[in-house]
């Protein structure tokens, strides 16, 4: 387990788009001057007549995607998470979600691990603001293998979606491509009886590390990949809370409004158990190496392990 295989989710996205483009002539892709970074450039190279670089104009990109979708296209629109979710929020709300258009907003550079570019480029609020929009499905894949499945599923699913990917190369949490991906259905990555750690994105790997580390203390952690932030897997959350009686949630996002909030909303109305959240405090990030930022902002397996110990104390 020491030698983790690292693959960028955005690379998986670029490859999946090319495959989809070959299979389905209705797939169109838009970007806002970040095609090389988001990897939509791979699709652009193969299908230039179905690729539109909208320039530095995210709002225009999203509403244009809506117009293409209204004419029968499956539109994938990509940029960085801060610009996609933030700059174009109103366009996503009205042109895409209110109209239930078949637009897939696939953003890269989600979260603090965007790194050196600093706070302006670190999307720590995107899941909260996307989750609040009716008709929107919000997904954060845990690794590159899951990303490929998510993108293929997105092309078959009719309706608006927000899919958040990362900048850096991240560890694979799946060993093979086997296993189904179902929107809204969490995946139990590791069985356990003492506590459940819910996580999404890069925090799934860290949750698994925390669970492994806690084995030595004879603590049996269940780890669940809640890749779909909305619609949240209410049944699985309640089942895990009832069976383990303690919950920790870990996400690379603000402590406000993301996965932690979504899980808390379910628990508070259905099954109150001790709970702790791991996420970025209510503050902006800063420049630094991704690994340094993860440590400084408390997004580590050690922090998850400490949170587990704290909820277990409250459980007693």
């Amino acid at each position: 387990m020491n030698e983790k295989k690292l693959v960028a989710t955005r690379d998986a996205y670029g490859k999946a788009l090319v495959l989809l483009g070959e299979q389905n002539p209705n797939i169109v892709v838009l970007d806002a001057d970040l095609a090389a970074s988001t990897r939509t450039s791979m699709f652009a190279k193969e299908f230039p007549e179905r690729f539109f670089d909208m320039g530095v104009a995210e709002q225009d990109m999203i509403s244009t995607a809506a117009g293409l979708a209204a004419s029968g296209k499956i539109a994938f629109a990509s940029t960085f998470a801060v610009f996609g979710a933030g700059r174009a929020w109103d366009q996503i709300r009205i042109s895409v979600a209110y109209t239930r258009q078949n637009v897939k907003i696939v953003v890269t550079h989600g979260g603090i691990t965007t790194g050196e570019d600093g706070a302006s480029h670190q999307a720590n609020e995107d899941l909260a603001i996307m989750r609040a929009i009716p008709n929107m499905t919000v997904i954060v894949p845990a690794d590159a293998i899951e990303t490929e499945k998510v993108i293929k599923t997105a092309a078959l699913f009719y309706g608006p979606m927000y899919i958040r990917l990362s900048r850096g190369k991240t560890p694979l949490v799946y060993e093979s491509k086997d296993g189904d991906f179902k929107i809204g259905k969490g995946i139990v990555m590791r069985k356990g009886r003492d506590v459940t750690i819910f996580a999404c994105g890069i925090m799934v790997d860290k949750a698994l590390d925390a669970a492994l580390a806690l084995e030595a203390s004879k603590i049996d952690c269940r780890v669940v990949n809640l890749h779909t932030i909305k619609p949240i897997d209410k049944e699985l959350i309640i089942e895990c809370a009832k069976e383990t009686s303690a919950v920790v949630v870990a996400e690379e996002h603000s402590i406000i409004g993301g996965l932690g909030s979504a899980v808390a909303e379910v628990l508070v109305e259905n099954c109150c158990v001790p709970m702790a959240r791991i996420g970025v405090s209510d503050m902006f990030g800063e420049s630094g190496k991704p690994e340094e930022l993860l440590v400084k902002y408390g997004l580590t397996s050690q922090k998850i392990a400490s949170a587990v110990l704290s909820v277990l104390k409250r459980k007693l």
Partner: protein
Amino acid sequence: MISKEKTRELEKMARQLRRHIIEMTCAAVSGHPGGALSAADMVAALYFYKLRYNSQDPSWPERDRFVMSKGHAAPVLYAALAEAGYFPKKYLKTLRQLGSSLQGHVDMLSVPGIEMSTGSLGQGLSAANGMALAARIDKKDYHVYCMLGDGECQEGQVWEAAMTSAHHRLDNLTVMVDRNKYQIDGKVEDIKNIEPFALKWKAFGFNVLSCDGHNMKAIIEALDRATDFKGKPTVIICDTVKGKGVSFMEENPLSYHGKAPTPEEEKKALEQLCHIEEFKI
């Protein structure tokens, strides 16, 4: 060339749309009559002269598309769609009521014939571009029309979209601007001046036409010139009067941007709209 009879028929239809607008907004006790009335002649020209559509098959793939970007002008679009046979005219008076399909701002999922939901200004032209780009990919010859308000052109996205239209040389796209010169807070020139307006569109790469937005013959001629023009998108700047057709609204356009006529005002307005018709015929 359009015949005198057809022109008169379209003028009559525009008056009919105006009567609907007055009755709808009065019944709703809310809504935006001013900017709907200013657009009535343009909308009549589009739906009863220019657009290719089948109201019995609203999703006919070959149809022309019309995007009402100034979504608050919903009453004039609903009136035109009802007159065109998309839904029964009796529904018009349900505007803005709980449970009605006729939402305060246009909603494509609740009313057949509406191509894009709007209401938050500035988004329609981008969506229209998307439709025009789709036509190109699909090798279809439908034309896309988009109506903007002049106050709306203070939104930055309008100009992002204008760059897109021009960059892709979307000559299957025609923009109509309802240049009624007023926005909610006052005169456009006082709030944030958009002039030199025609020069802006020209600089952004459009074929620019202008016409009297209440002269049916002029509107028709401009629309025909727009769709004949190749190599660039066209914008028609239509000089209009907010509240057109109702004297007390024309005289006090700011009061009737987002305020419905009272029943007494409705009566007076309908009398004026009938009177004009009798006078002209």
